């Protein structure tokens, strides 16, 4: 994407709700800042629950999770924001997240401060984080290999049986093995 919405220093730089006080998003979201944990910002509008599914967060482990859905955003038009308390994401989790929310920014929050802010990197390949949906794929048996996928522009593709798994969040969630 190009255009004015890609400019640094715009509203998106401040609207994760855990940085400068009194931003527009703070008012719109009515969500308090978190002390420790992760803020995932710039998730495509409507995919917050998918992201939680991919990360294996269903509330059963007691995490405090706040979600803003379809929040107006300069960069994405509508975006979702997730705040997960007392949880930092692993490399594998970031890899899978990059597949459904390539524009996401991850803020690691420690003692109310954003201690690390970074974009997800779209890897060329992901291994061991998604299982192949093809029941006849060699990785479906007991062979000593991890399901491995090449990352396409849209979706992922099993390097063994070459089945393509769509970019649509639901199918990735269904086959995600992390969490």
């Amino acid at each position, binding site marked *: 994407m190009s255009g004015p919405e890609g400019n640094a220093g715009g509203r998106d730089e401040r609207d994760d709700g855990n940085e400068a006080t009194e931003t527009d998003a703070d008012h719109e979201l009515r969500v308090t800042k978190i002390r420790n944990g992760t803020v995932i910002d710039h998730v495509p509008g409507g995919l917050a629950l998918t992201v939680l599914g991919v990360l294996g967060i269903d509330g059963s482990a007691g995490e405090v999770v706040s979600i803003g859905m379809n929040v107006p955003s300069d960069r994405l038009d509508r975006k979702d924001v997730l705040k997960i308390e007392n949880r930092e994401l692993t490399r594998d989790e970031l890899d899978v997240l990059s597949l459904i929310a390539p524009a996401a920014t991850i803020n690691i929050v420690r003692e109310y401060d954003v201690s690390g802010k970074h974009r997800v990197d779209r890897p060329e390949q992901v291994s061991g984080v998604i299982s192949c949906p093809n029941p006849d794929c*060699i*990785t479906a048996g*007991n*062979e*000593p290999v991890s399901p491995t996928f090449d990352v396409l522009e849209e979706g992922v593709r099993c390097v063994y*049986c070459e089945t393509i798994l769509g970019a649509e969040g639901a199918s990735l969630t269904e086959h995600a093995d992390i969490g």
Partner: protein
Amino acid sequence: MGQHLISAKQLSRADIERVLDHAAALERDSPTDRRSGTLLGLCFFEPSTRTRLSFEAAIKRLGGDALDMGAIEASSVTKGETLADTVRVLAGYVDALVLRHPSEGAARMASEFVSVPLINAGDGAGQHPTQTLLDLYTMRENVGLDGLSIGIMGDLKYGRTVHSLSLALTNFDTTQHLVSPESLRLPRGVRYDLEAAGASVQEHTDLSTVLPDLDVLYVTRIQRERFPDDAEYRAIAGEYRIDAATLEDAKENLIVMHPLPRVEEIAADVDETPHAKYFEQAKNGVAVRMALLDLALDGGGIFAADESGSLADWNEGADA
């Protein structure tokens, strides 16, 4: 490693021509001792007649010998051994391995565990690249490989010979007419690759509209087990069957091909027409596999001697 043949997607035009040229030379010279003392391992986890026997004939005609794993019922596979372990052990006994397996991606995975060249002889509904090479050899001998209109008919979804052929044809100036019932169209993965290769492909549900334009008609079998009931199978399979009368509308020099075994999709009366090339095609399997094995066994890696470098990169290039 750069030494395995896993998918037709690996094959460039130069790769294909090199194998076909070598096959033609071997057929002319019929050598008997080029690969004397060489052992080829045959690992067939699925029944096979033509492919297994033609590989065995090929290595024997090159002066080598074959070590056949035999039926899986009598092997350690029934004890639950993984494919990875099986091929790793067999690779220690032989100079090259040929693998057929019911799971897609089996050859790719197995190749990660062996240090000898591994040739995919069919992985489930995946790929069958050596069949493609003999298909192309047969086409080249009869009608050339460029400026062709090629019809591919039958089960395009599960037919691995079709997946490989269709991808390999993107190296040549061809238009592919894919004729199948709606439920047996090419799978998404193959479509993706065809699109990426910029292939000229048209899909049809009825042969009659395109038959008069075709130079090649490649027929495949529609399997009964792909349909929920017998009546549906019969109704659909019946629409994709040809006989001598069907071919009256075809070009005089149309060739009809089939990977065999055929059941009812080509009537026996086609055998007597000049169109029928499927038995010649099966026979070509030996020369083409001789060429492939001879290149595979050539020193430092399957096709490593190629000056352009493209063949040396077969395996690494597969993901590109």
